[in-house]
């Protein structure tokens, strides 16, 4: 049995209460949502917060709803709810494809959207998809809230714009009528982090790419994104040749590191191959829309 270092625990009753607790304990406090990254790190004593602020009771963060032309996902929404959400599936089939390959059912039952974004693991799938869809995140503190584009949210691996005393409350995803989307992932085994993964959306009108987004995880893409490849593809015909060219640009833009999941050259190759596959299927489902 792994034994964490001494810690204390408080269960927040509202977002305001959680913020008050966070303020009280400063940088020694950590928010606990699903706990599926934090608790394992504590058990290995890689993380040793002195105070856990549990936000599992915060019903105000558990919604998936449409507001205007955005889908709003509360920070406490579990992966399992994203997987099952008809709203998300209707607008972006990629959410279901992505969630299907995130960890395993046990983790998905507990792990949360907010936790995934804030953990900011470079191999985190939902962050890649959020980046592909050019969503925004809402961060609250005692003074109020601010909205940050997903592509500015992460400073780098494991670091985000959420400061001490702040809570990520929502993810907002723009709705794009007619968009097709897809998610591709290579993993060594189900439940493992990605060797490489790619989420894309494409809006095709009259054979031309009107809009698109590409997000990549685990391959060293800054902000999980590939803006050069998107810029190349937008306005071009949705041909195999152009998709392949965009995929190559996306891969060029990546700087993966070798690890036990695979060497850098392989990951770079996967970035290209998976981008191409995701774009292909996005185009197909967009045209079908």
């Amino acid at each position, binding site marked *: 049995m792994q034994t964490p*270092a001494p810690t204390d625990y408080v269960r927040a009753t509202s977002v305001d209460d959680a913020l008050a607790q966070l303020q009280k304990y400063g940088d020694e406090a950590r928010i606990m949502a699903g706990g599926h990254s934090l608790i394992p790190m504590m058990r290995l004593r890689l993380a040793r917060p002195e105070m856990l602020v549990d936000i599992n009771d915060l019903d105000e963060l558990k919604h998936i709803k449409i507001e205007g032309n955005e889908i709003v996902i509360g920070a406490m929404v579990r992966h399992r709810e994203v997987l099952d959400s008809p709203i998300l599936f209707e607008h972006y089939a990629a959410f279901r494809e992505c969630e299907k390959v995130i960890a395993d059912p046990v983790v998905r039952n507990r792990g949360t959207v907010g936790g995934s974004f804030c953990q900011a693991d470079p191999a985190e799938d939902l962050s890649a998809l959020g980046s592909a869809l050019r969503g925004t995140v809402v961060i609250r503190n005692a003074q109020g809230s601010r909205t940050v584009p997903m592509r500015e949210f992460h400073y780098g691996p494991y670091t985000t714009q959420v400061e001490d005393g702040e809570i990520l409350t929502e993810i907002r995803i723009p709705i794009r009528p007619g968009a097709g989307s897809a998610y591709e992932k290579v993993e060594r085994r189900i439940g493992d982090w990605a060797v490489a993964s790619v989420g894309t959306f494409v809006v095709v009108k009259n054979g031309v790419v009107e809009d698109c987004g590409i997000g990549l995880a685990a391959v060293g893409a800054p902000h999980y994104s590939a803006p050069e490849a998107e810029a190349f593809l937008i306005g071009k015909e949705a041909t195999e040749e152009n998709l392949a060219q965009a995929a190559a640009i996306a891969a060029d833009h990546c700087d993966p590191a070798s690890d036990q999941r695979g060497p850098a050259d392989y990951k770079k190759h996967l970035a290209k191959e998976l981008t191409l596959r995701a774009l292909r299927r996005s185009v197909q489902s967009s045209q079908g829309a």
Partner: protein
Amino acid sequence: MTAVEEVPLSAAGNPIGFGNMKRVEDQRFVRGQGNYVDDVNLPGMLHSAILRSPYAHARIKSIDTTAAEALPGVVAVITGKTLEGIPRPSLLGDNFAWMPTLSYDTQAVLATDKVRFQGQEVAYVIATDRYIAKDAVELIEVDYEALDPVMDAKKAMDAGAPVIRDDKGQTDNSITDVHGNKTWESGNAIGTAEAIEKAKNDPNCVVVTQEILYPRVHPAPMETCGAVSYLDKVTGQLTMYTTSQAPHAHRTVYAMVAGLPEHKIRIISPDIGGGFGNKVGVYPGYVLSVIGTIVTGKPVKWMEDRGENLMSTSFARDYHMTGTIAATKDGKILAVDVDVLADHGAFNGVAQPTNYPAGFFNIFSGSYDYPDAHCKVTPVYTNKAPGGVAYACSFRITEAAYVIERLVDCLAAEIEMDAADLRLKNLLRPEQFPYTSPTGWEYDSGEYEKTMRVAMEIAGYDELRKEQAEKRARGEYMGIGISFFTEGVGAGPRKDMDILGLGMADGIELRVHPTGKAVIRLSVQSQGQGHETTYAQIVAHELGIPPEDVEVVHGDTDQTPFGLGTYGSRSTPVSGAAAAVVSRKVRDRAKIVAAAALECSPDDLEWELGRWFVKGDKERGKTIQEIALLSHSSLELPEGVEGHLDATAVYNPPNLTYPYGCYICVVDVDPLTGQVKVRRFIAVDDCGTRINPMIVEGQVHGGLADGIGMALMELIAFDEDGNNLGGSFMDYLLPTAVECPDWELGETVTPSPHHPIGAKGVGESATVGSPAAVVNAVIDAISPFGVRHADMPLTPANVWRAIQGNNVRTDMAVE
């Protein structure tokens, strides 16, 4: 399904004998009511934790335990220096800092001079709870002087390589076995070399050489290792609840290590959550819990965590093999030679019979008929965790089966012959049994071709090949892999086999109470094999009493007779035989009692299941239950015949048993990502008589999943600095249901001629046989890219690299 004879059912619906029966033990397991070592809590019990080395190789300059000792709740902090100060009244060294391994080497209980692998035990904290123990571990300050580690077995014997075992006065990293040898050879060296040389010069022959790595993997049982030890100072008895696959052997080892009288030691192995060889060895943690109770006078629990289990307890494999196979161009195998470099880690702790320093690896000549085979195994020390234990490997038969089955496929590719045809051409024929192999094993029985044909039939082999050809034409890559393996299990005959001088025979006791209910006491130890069910069925089969009337007692040295435990698939071949033999002794005693009661001569009696009756007068008879009561009654028995029916037996097997099987795996490979999907897996096993086919199938299922794990994902790799890269379940990947297809099982039954019930043991067959089938299938799939071999684990990255023509060392950190 199994062709079992018509077996009568008991009132509870169980077979009175062999046949499918739900496992008795599952009643508690599926309800969460098992009782594992970590469930044991004794009054006043203390907890403990081990400080482990962050370095693979470093000199210990000093250890400061002051802060740890000052932490409230800490009872004692023990270092190697403390242990050096405890004199040991035994022949195995003069203090407790070192202990013997199962291969006559020494291993540090707590490091004194140097640490020799990452995760090695450095200090031991005893505290009032396990959180405090762990907190205190963090407060111990160790001053290390880092040394260059030896992480590549291939460089261990280089001139100038750092010397790991300077404690023994060594000047290099060679390992000398108990017989004084630095290498171990088996088979016909000269004949094999000549046959290979001749083939090289013969235009009608080919010689294929392939380097094949079986990388380091870990047994990774669900329950990690642990112990609760209590030395009662009033009675002088040491009671130890521990995760042991071999309680009796462990008792003897503790008696030797701790210098305690053996009759004052009681080892209890309650429910064991998987072993796979991991719980054969004696680990420093176990010994420390004993020292802990001696020092504190209280019960002390030690339970390792997952990372400790993966990083410090017995690994498996780590064999660098170079195989050479010579054959005629039309596919007749002539000779095989295998040269092995064996990585044993920092201490030679391999668990195997004394006369077999490389285990039963020399059964590598496999299932084929050819005259010349030879192997040479050279073990070396490296700065990795020690052990080299079985991982459901039947003493290195996994490595043996893998190397021959890969070589046969390499040969098939070289001579462009179908892998099934090549095997069928060379398989041993039924009339050759009993067959003496070129390395001296006597295979007891087999009808190999029949088994292979059954597997090919289930697979639809010819259609699969047709499908493969069609798919290749459209650029899709499916592969079909075959493995035909022969195991030798049930160690073993006492004249040949012992561990630390303890012969490998198994004792057993059977008591029959006056009402005809029976208790059988085993020396072997279930870790999930279903002994509580199987052994009751053996008694039921022999005595004709319902299996639910037989209580199976195991896992307590005070309650059971001596024997060497459960590993190497030995329970059924050895202890299962003992169960049949002791039941027959009871039956023979019952015959005498029945004759007295029926007032006839025992010679006039005939046996039918559960009953002796007078020949020619079936109505006149006595059931076992009636006889049991009579044997305890005032019935007058012939002179010299004692009452009661109880009996004991010790079974010394005349030979190993030789289960075998043919496995066929079908995979689909995506060459652009390297992903492998195991689409089908056909496993036809011949393990002789099947006592409980449902349990056999369960064991095969588990072993096949193991095989997929090893072939595709499991790996303990190290980086150059000596860091273990497989120290958690995020890094050490075990297969899940998603990676496993619906297993397609088949069977043939060729009973062992020398086993009382003809059973051969099956616990490890699937683990032994399946990795080669999976790898052969993947290589078959990507052979159009010119790939003849790639090493396990065949992760997507490794498959992709093989396709690029870039085969790399899979046991090193990925660069």
